[in-house]
């Protein structure tokens, strides 16, 4: 009797270990990277959506427009 109770208790305690993840999805797991481009007509020209190197180059070029010393000097 004691053994059966002990086995039952162990089963009850261990049942928590088998619980599955109840989250809907892991946050951001389905977020596509920015370099893949947007599905709208606002994507500007000068780079190729899907090409990471091209996107990085575009970001650098765009960042440089914030440096007005490039324009004045």
């Amino acid at each position, binding site marked *: 009797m004691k053994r059966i109770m002990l086995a039952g208790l162990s089963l009850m305690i261990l049942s928590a270990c088998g619980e599955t993840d109840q*989250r*809907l*999805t*892991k*946050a*951001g*797991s*389905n*977020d*596509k*990277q*920015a*370099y*893949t*481009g*947007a*599905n*709208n007509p*606002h*994507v*500007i020209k*000068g*780079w190729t*959506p899907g090409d990471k190197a091209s*996107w*990085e180059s*575009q*970001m*650098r070029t*765009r*960042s*440089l*427009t*914030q*440096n*007005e*010393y490039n324009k004045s000097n």
Partner: protein
Amino acid sequence: MARMKFICDAERCIECNGCVTACKNEHEVPWGVNRRRVITINDGVQGQEKSISVACMHCSDAPCMAVCPVDCFYRTDEGVVLHDKDICIGCGYCSYACPFGAPQFPSNGTFGLRGKMDKCTFCAGGPEENGSKAEFDKYGRNRLSEGKLPACAEMCSTKALLGGDGDMVADIFRTRVLKRGKGSEVWGWGTAYGVATNPDAKAPAVMEIKR
């Protein structure tokens, strides 16, 4: 590519609120929610009053991510801290943890119930399809995937607010500081991205700079 960062140059900010307006317009942010705002520091102190534009700084070790009980935050490869509104429960813990007061909570409904958290996305949208209507409705425009930088930084009339690749914006700011010989303090930079590895490092004296 380095990670995305914001820098606000307090020497240049004229408190025009152009960044705030650009952000609200670009993302159609509802009433009561300000993803970006301009604050005044040393208010009333003669000669020391400065204005800075503040929003989510997309911290290196983001405290909001650490305290979120439902793990709704994630970081993109570019270092942008985003969140999933389908997971957020609007508890407000992130609001207490954030040193910049970035998380915002819309008050919707008859009793002004607190909604899901909303914050600056560095114009990188959210987990929905890039550039889709669903993404726009929840998170605003995804300018990064359109090949653009954040609207607030690109709209800034005095270029006080710089946004983009961390190395590049730091270079732009460094050039300015060297040219003008003052105003090297970057408010919030250390809090968001950590302090310099060598705390004794000093900028070269202004006298040595070639003009």
